[in-house]
């Protein structure tokens, strides 16, 4: 178990969104979460990374045996948690490459490693850019500014590849991607798979799951995980929707 969520209750504003959610991520596994719009999927990922919108009112999230709740967002990131945003924000004036290098070096310092200089960093980044089919000018531009939807998603994956996190949360990484982009992004993700890492993939579509081959499918509805099953569940959800899934307790 790398991440363990127990009886999580969380509010946004006055509204309770997560209502006693339980979920465990296993090392080396790919977990997919599906569920209707507004069910709380993004809220769950925000809760894990410590987003200021989300207030945790009960329960706990533990990571590598320790509670996350006391950690600031940057500490969580340095400890190896990464979320790709459903809607990455544009940050005009912050150079993408500079941002990536600052983030990577913060992590390297935290891990007791030497910082990378600009040249070393550039080399590392170039490899990833080609693999992701990203234009080199994307990193000399301002962070996400004027990026198309698909470019933003690729840029999220670029960050993931560079930061090499241990828990990777992908919130609708597949939405807005064309066929080639979906393939490139999936390959990027697959390339990160190993026995220590785990993935939490939030999606509405089976297509990306065909590439990622998840070990578990969880259905999040009414603020809880109401069903967990193997990959076969996806087909049933695609044909029948979520209505039939009820809180069995």
């Amino acid at each position, binding site marked *: 178990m790398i991440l363990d969520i127990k009886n999580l209750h969380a509010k946004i504003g006055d509204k309770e969104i997560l209502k006693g959610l339980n979920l465990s991520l296993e090392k080396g596994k790919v977990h997919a979460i599906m569920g209707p719009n507004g069910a709380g999927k993004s809220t769950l990922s925000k809760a894990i990374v410590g*987003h200021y919108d989300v207030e945790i009112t009960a329960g706990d999230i533990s990571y590598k045996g320790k509670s996350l709740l006391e950690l600031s*967002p940057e500490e969580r990131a340095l400890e190896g948690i*990464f979320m790709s945003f459903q809607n990455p924000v544009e940050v005009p004036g912050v150079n993408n490459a500079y941002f990536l290098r*600052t983030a990577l070096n913060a992590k390297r310092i935290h891990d007791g490693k030497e910082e990378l200089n600009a040249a070393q960093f550039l080399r590392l980044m170039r490899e990833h850019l080609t693999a992701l089919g990203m234009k080199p000018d994307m990193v000399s531009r301002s962070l996400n500014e004027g990026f198309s939807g698909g470019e933003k998603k690729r840029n999220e994956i670029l*960050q993931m590849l560079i930061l090499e996190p241990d828990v990777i949360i992908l919130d609708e990484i597949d939405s807005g991607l064309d066929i080639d982009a979906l393939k490139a992004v999936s390959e990027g993700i697959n390339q990160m798979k190993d026995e220590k890492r785990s993935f939490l993939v939030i999606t509405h579509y089976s297509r990306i799951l065909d590439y990622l081959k998840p070990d578990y499918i969880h259905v999040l509805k009414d603020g809880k995980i109401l069903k967990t099953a193997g990959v076969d569940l996806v087909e049933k959800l695609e044909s029948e929707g979520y209505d039939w899934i009820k809180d069995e307790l």
Partner: protein
Amino acid sequence: MRLINLTQLSAIELDECRNKHPKHALIEKVQTLGLPTRKSEAYRYVEVEPLLRETYEYAEFAPKPIVYGEKIIIEDGYVTTAPKGIRVYYSDFDDVNMNHYDPLYFLGHLLSPKVIMIEIDGDSDIELLHRFTKSNTLISYRIVIKNQTNRHASIYEYFESKNAQNSLILYGYDIMVTQDSTLGIIKNQTINDNAYNMVASHNVKVGKQASMMLKTFDFGDSSALQLLNIELDTHAMVDTGHLLYLLGHAKRGTVSKIVHKGEHTHSTQEAKNILDDGARGIFDALIKVEQSAKYTKTRQNSKAILLGEGSFMVAKPQLEIYIDELEASHGSTTGQLNNNQLFYLQSRGISKIEARKMLIIAFANTLIETIRDGRQQEKIQKSFEEAFYKKDLS
């Protein structure tokens, strides 16, 4: 001398002036407009009145010989060096804009028997250093810039001071941007520890098909004010930008009036203001579109980020329009750093302090990056970061 005394001349003295003084028209202007008080429109947000009440050392006009150097240096109001290829000399000036709104514009001319004339031939980039070395002194000088048609020139202004405390500096430009030419003025001014007091009052006429770029970068913890009066002839264009990074109890900024006189004139004015501690930023800017200025385009915007508990922005973008057909947009926003952006950076392991810095620098950069000359852009960037990191170290 005390400037305040100027407005207290008796009627008899005035009459005498009128007969004898070659510049009596200026004296009358100063009298009718009145020296700035707390109630004067243009000077509401800075405290200039106490400065005018001070008693200053004031020397008779005594220019020194000008030697060749890399840049133009004006020390305590007198030119000391000038580069080859640019004509810099003292001259009489009879083209004072009698419609200027600022009394200190007239006062500046009144106190300057001659103006510093800078004639730029051809395309050139010129550095102009203002240096102040006298304390408790009234330093007043006017600069007139002339360029040539079909030519592109830029002036990069810098400021330096040593032992200039309690001095009042009144300076400013009268600029005629010649038909079919472009002229850029880029000002980079950091004032810390009340090194000197300054009111800069400018007058710019942009000729037919000419374009002017005016970018000002004002940093530091001390107060100052710049006043602009810009008039646009047919097909003329002006692009202005003002970056403020203020801290401490600085009260600083821009009062401006851009007048569209001719048809097909364009103006843009963009103010970015970063205010820390108890600093007050000022952007009090009127765009006036006269009846004669059909097909005007104008865009005006002010954005402020308040970082300090007591920081405050006076943003007053104003449009005064006498035609129906134009494209105009203006607005202002004042707020904090964007939480979404902050969180995004933090979620990648960047500390909150570092993330804040990145966003503040980014905000400033959007204006600094409009300076196309790489070396000059770097200099401004450096000035900004020095002012910014000074806060950090204290």
